[in-house]
């Protein structure tokens, strides 16, 4: 009961924050509201006992994204160009997509149902044999680092390549700016 109340309250705060981030004119304020959104979302994840997801949400959404958005504001300025609050074609697209997604969730198994297909496939094997097969005491870690080892390895390679590309691009931009100043 308490958990349900907490979840509903947090989700309510999330909706208020999201509407505020869209409605507010100052881009700095919108960035700060998005940081708040991430912190609240992380709380929702913790409340759902998905601590590792909450970790990622807080690090990426609350930390890195805020810094990246602020870095963007350095280039584009702090004020949004005046525009009507609701852009009707986009609003219609969002409402229709949302309705389709909600319709899709109607077919999903009940929340926390132990008979749901994801809990019947490979999960029992991991739970029963992860320790003897991988020697990793935590099975989320065992799945990520051992059973899905290649997946994680190449994910890391992708992120490394993206980071490398970004550094090279930004370096070039900075050198050009310095050149222009001279």
């Amino acid at each position, binding site marked *: 009961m308490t958990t349900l109340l907490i979840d509903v309250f947090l989700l309510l705060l999330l909706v208020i924050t999201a509407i505020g981030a869209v409605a507010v004119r100052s881009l700095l304020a919108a960035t*700060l509201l998005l940081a708040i959104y991430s*912190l609240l979302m992380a709380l929702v994840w913790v409340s759902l006992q998905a601590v590792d997801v909450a970790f990622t949400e807080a690090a990426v959404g609350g930390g890195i994204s805020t810094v990246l958005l*602020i870095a963007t504001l350095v280039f584009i300025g702090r004020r949004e160009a005046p525009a009507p609050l609701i852009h009707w074609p986009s609003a219609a697209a969002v409402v229709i997509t949302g309705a389709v997604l909600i319709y899709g969730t109607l077919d999903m198994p009940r929340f926390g149902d132990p008979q749901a297909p994801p809990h019947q496939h490979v999960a029992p094997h991991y739970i029963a044999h992860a320790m003897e097969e991988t020697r990793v005491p935590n099975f989320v870690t065992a799945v990520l680092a051992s059973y899905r080892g290649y997946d994680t390895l190449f994910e890391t390679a992708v992120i490394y390549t993206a980071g490398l590309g970004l550094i090279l691009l930004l370096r070039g931009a900075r050198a050009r700016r310095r050149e222009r100043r001279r």
Partner: protein
Amino acid sequence: MMFTAAGAAVLIAILLFLMRALLGPTAFDRILAVNAIGTKTVVFVALLGFMAGRPDFLDIALLYALINFIATLAVLKFVEYRHLD
């Protein structure tokens, strides 16, 4: 019971800070609101951990405190100097 009361107090505090972040009026009000919500998040994660009987959530609460600091630093630097490097 004690944890529930504390949790309710923290959630109401978050609501009040959210109002401050939405209403402004200056950038500093909003930055302070974000920072305060970050602090309340740390407290609430710790509280949820003890409510669920998993006190190891405390480590995550500590991580949040660190992340909160980085974002606030970047925002303040931008407001003060208009660039990050």
